[in-house]
């Protein structure tokens, strides 16, 4: 592999790597706007001009780092010469002369490429004093589609959005219109930017020209707290950054993971946190429809399960449980001597995320962790939602009050209510929770640590973004308390201890540990036979609905 020296740091890169990527490897950021690692190279923003010497001989002009590919040894790149600094200064001036400089009312302010590079490479005064700025009257807030709004005045014409719709989404709704300084971005006549990945153009827009309808004016970005998380929209498990302020989730942004979602995520997933706001929240443990404390509620559950010897006890799982929660529920079922466990999952629209040099990843199940829940101990029983299965139960434990659409369906609720004693865990105060004998408020996925296993059997860890409020507690804690009533060894568990324990026990997770789980997740060793049962069931169901 050829070696290249960038600002005196030498790195070895694959032949054909461009200087921007080589720079990142060497720890040097070459400023750029139009270049994106997944989009074709157009070399048009001219921000990445660098000085390149080949074998000590300087190239006559500054070169764009994005379109200069390291093919052989001997290249030396400098990004810190006066000449380069002068060029960068000139480019920043060009970008800003016609930019409205409306940062105080711009959503991008705080994460804006123009602000960052102005600060680093630009100058603090303007020489554009006597001329009028170019504007696009009437094109300050054009909805390009349902989720994206364009402000043409702020655009720096990098064409990342156009190339995204052409090359990644494959839909090509956007184009470059007009010429010269009057050039503008727009949708082709009769088209709208409504493809499933549309909002990705907002992420890759380096300035505030494209903003998300959902996030517009919702929050100044510097007030956002950001934590790595996983999208719960479907079984793909796109890596996201959960961005919230004081427990109020403002947006999901895709987090790069080359194995799963690359740089992208779908609009459906971006909106999936809305349900935490739209649906009523279960905020206090309830015993027989009366608010109570945790000890009383858990004592009631404990005595009911312990006293139900001989009677049938069933566990209705959920694809929204973390693997650790499912494992603990499984242990509870073991202690209760119950074999009747199942994980119902809704089938939704199929979402497809394109990936680099890999086939696209697709998800149909409308929950992130059906596979993890089944692997960890909730799979294998018969369907509790059907017929009179619930009525035969002495105790029915519903692990998630919002396990799917059925939890909101009065008929299903009535059917599940036929169980002699109904325990419901969950964050949502669904009709099912309201019908329960004991309802236990637990954290949703923004409020807890855990892992999900995605459609490709990749286990991925996510972090608590903010603490739950009121009496809400993470389910792992609650289950640890409940299990310790049977066996003191289960006291004081957390997601990490449970994960390490299940990794030691379940062959699929062998060799993994919470601390050493890679940021990109880890592939599970899944025996061929095991998961296929419910996969086939899902396929049969999807064929039935199709």
């Amino acid at each position: 592999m050829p070696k290249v020296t960038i600002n005196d740091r030498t790195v070895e890169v694959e032949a054909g790597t461009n200087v921007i990527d080589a720079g990142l490897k060497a720890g040097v950021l070459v400023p750029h706007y139009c270049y994106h690692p997944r989009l074709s190279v157009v070399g048009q923003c001219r921000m990445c001009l660098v000085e390149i010497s080949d074998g000590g001989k300087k190239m006559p002009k500054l070169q764009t780092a994005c379109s200069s590919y390291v093919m052989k040894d001997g290249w030396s790149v400098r990004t810190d010469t006066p000449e380069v600094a002068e060029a960068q200064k000139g480019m920043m001036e060009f970008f800003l002369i016609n930019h409205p400089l409306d940062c105080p009312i711009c959503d991008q302010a705080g994460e804006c490429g123009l602000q960052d590079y102005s600060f680093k490479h630009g100058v603090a005064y303007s020489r554009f004093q006597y001329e009028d700025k170019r504007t696009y009257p009437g094109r300050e807030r054009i909805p390009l589609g349902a989720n994206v709004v364009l402000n043409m005045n702020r655009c720096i014409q990098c064409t990342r959005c156009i190339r995204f719709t052409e090359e990644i989404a494959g839909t090509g709704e956007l184009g470059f219109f007009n010429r010269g300084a009057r050039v503008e971005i727009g949708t082709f006549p009769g088209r709208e930017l409504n493809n499933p990945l549309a909002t990705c153009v907002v992420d890759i827009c380096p300035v505030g020209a494209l903003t998300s309808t959902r996030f517009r004016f919702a929050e100044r970005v510097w007030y956002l707290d950001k934590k790595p998380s996983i999208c719960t929209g479907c079984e793909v498990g796109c890596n996201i950054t959960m961005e919230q302020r004081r427990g109020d989730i403002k947006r999901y942004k895709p987090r790069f993971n080359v194995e799963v979602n690359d740089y992208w995520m779908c609009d459906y997933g971006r909106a999936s946190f809305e349900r935490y706001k739209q649906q009523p929240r279960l905020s206090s443990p309830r015993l027989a429809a009366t608010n109570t404390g945790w000890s009383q509620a858990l004592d009631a559950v404990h005595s009911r399960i312990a006293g139900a010897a001989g009677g049938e006890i069933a566990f209705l799982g959920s694809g929204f449980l973390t693997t650790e929660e499912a494992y603990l529920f499984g242990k509870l079922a073991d202690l209760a001597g119950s074999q009747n466990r199942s994980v119902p999952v809704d089938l939704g629209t199929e979402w497809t995320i394109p990936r680099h040099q890999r086939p696209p990843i697709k998800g149909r199940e409308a929950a992130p962790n059906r596979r993890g829940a089944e692997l960890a101990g909730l799979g294998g029983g018969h369907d509790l939602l059907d017929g009179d299965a619930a009525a035969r139960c002495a105790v029915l434990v519903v692990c998630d009050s919002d396990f799917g659409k059925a939890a909101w369906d009065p008929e299903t609720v009535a059917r599940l209510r036929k169980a002699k004693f109904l325990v419901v865990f969950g964050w949502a105060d669904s009709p099912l929770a309201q019908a329960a004998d004991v309802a236990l408020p637990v954290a949703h996925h923004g409020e807890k640590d855990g892992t999900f296993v995605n459609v490709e059997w990749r286990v991925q860890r996510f972090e608590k973004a903010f603490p739950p409020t009121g009496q809400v507690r993470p389910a792992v804690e609650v289950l640890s308390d409940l299990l310790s009533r049977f066996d003191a060894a289960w006291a004081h568990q957390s997601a990490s201890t449970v994960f390490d324990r299940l990794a030691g026990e379940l062959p699929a997770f062998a060799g993994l540990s919470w601390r050493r789980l890679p940021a990109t997740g880890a592939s599970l060793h899944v025996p061929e036979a095991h998961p296929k049962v419910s996969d086939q069931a899902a396929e049969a169901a999807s064929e039935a609905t199709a």
Partner: protein
Amino acid sequence: MAAFEPVLTKNVGKPEALTLKGYRQLGGYEGLTKALTMEPDAIIDEVKKSGLRGRGGAGFPAGMKWSFIPKGKDKPKYLVCNADESEPGTFKDRLLMENDPHQLIEGCAICCYAVSANTCYIYIRGEYVKSAVILEQALKEAYEAGILGDSVQGSGFKLNMYIHRGAGAYICGEETGMLESLEGKRGQPRVKPPFPAVVGAFGAPTVINNVETLCNVPHILTHGADWFKSIGTDERNTGPKLYAISGHVDRPGTYEYPIGVTFREMLDGAGGMWRGRQLKAFIPGGASAPILKPDQIDIKMDFDTVAKAGSMLGSAAVIVMDETTCMVRSVARLAKFFNHESCGQCTPCREGTNWMELVLKRLEHGEGTESDAQKLLSICKNIGGQSLCALGDAAIGPVKSLVDRFPEEIEQHVRERACPFPQPRYFENGA
């Protein structure tokens, strides 16, 4: 010099040259016949030896360009003839196409044979309707006579030639912008490398040559490289050259001279200055060439000498200006052209040409400030060498030379807070 026999324009004014029969009688298609008996590489060598440099503006040696085309047969190869002549002041290719279409077809055919290209596109500027009609007719005749088609003159070499008309964009005269337009996309230059010789039209190796360049080729083959080299100033500047002279001269038009004729001879040939006025400035190579002053009147008009004088021969479109010309207004008009024709994809050209036009207009209207000259230079510096294609460099040529060579005129505009020259009534409306 007086003994110079026109080469490229020898058939101009002979209507019979428009027909295949007439062209043959005038000695046409001899070059092609000779070429078909030669090895392709030998043709390239001959053209290399002749020292023919591209007549489109950059002056790149044509033979060398052809030799860059890979020899393999895994991809088709193309020749694209650049007939998108849209540099202000340039009208030489038009003359060749309208008066001697077969000369161009012959040149294209030889080039195609030399680089093993089976397809040739002639990309004609949209406004050149007459050229397109005449060339279409000539193509038809050539096909019927078996000069084009499945077997060129019975040699077994297959060649198809097509006319593609542009839609009115200067930037489509830039070679990669032309390829994009040819492929049916928005006409905007591509990032280079890869160069068209490797990845050109439809992703295949492509030669792109100007009309005049290709028209030289039959003559090189007929008369030999040594004959070609005997015309011109030196080893690096050979052959006949068309000069399009316009502006304040008595008889504007296209004139053929051996390359390297002096500007004074050329001016005299065009009948001298209009109404006997004084020469104030001249542009030697089209709108993008820096302006020269009368002290350069004896300059030899070849690629290297003009470059040494701080300008460029470009497309050899000579624009002559007399003492009544306001340089600021002229350059403002040129800046307006480049702003209008910038494709808008790269930052320095998109923003810089616009800014330059605004500053120059302000100066012309007497609203300039003392810092404007320096500001213009600094904008030029930020565009120069940093734009994606050559349009940025083209746009700064006239502006830079205005500031460098006519500073007193800018100062006068600023000091008097008005243009000191007679005002045309229609400056604002695009004149």
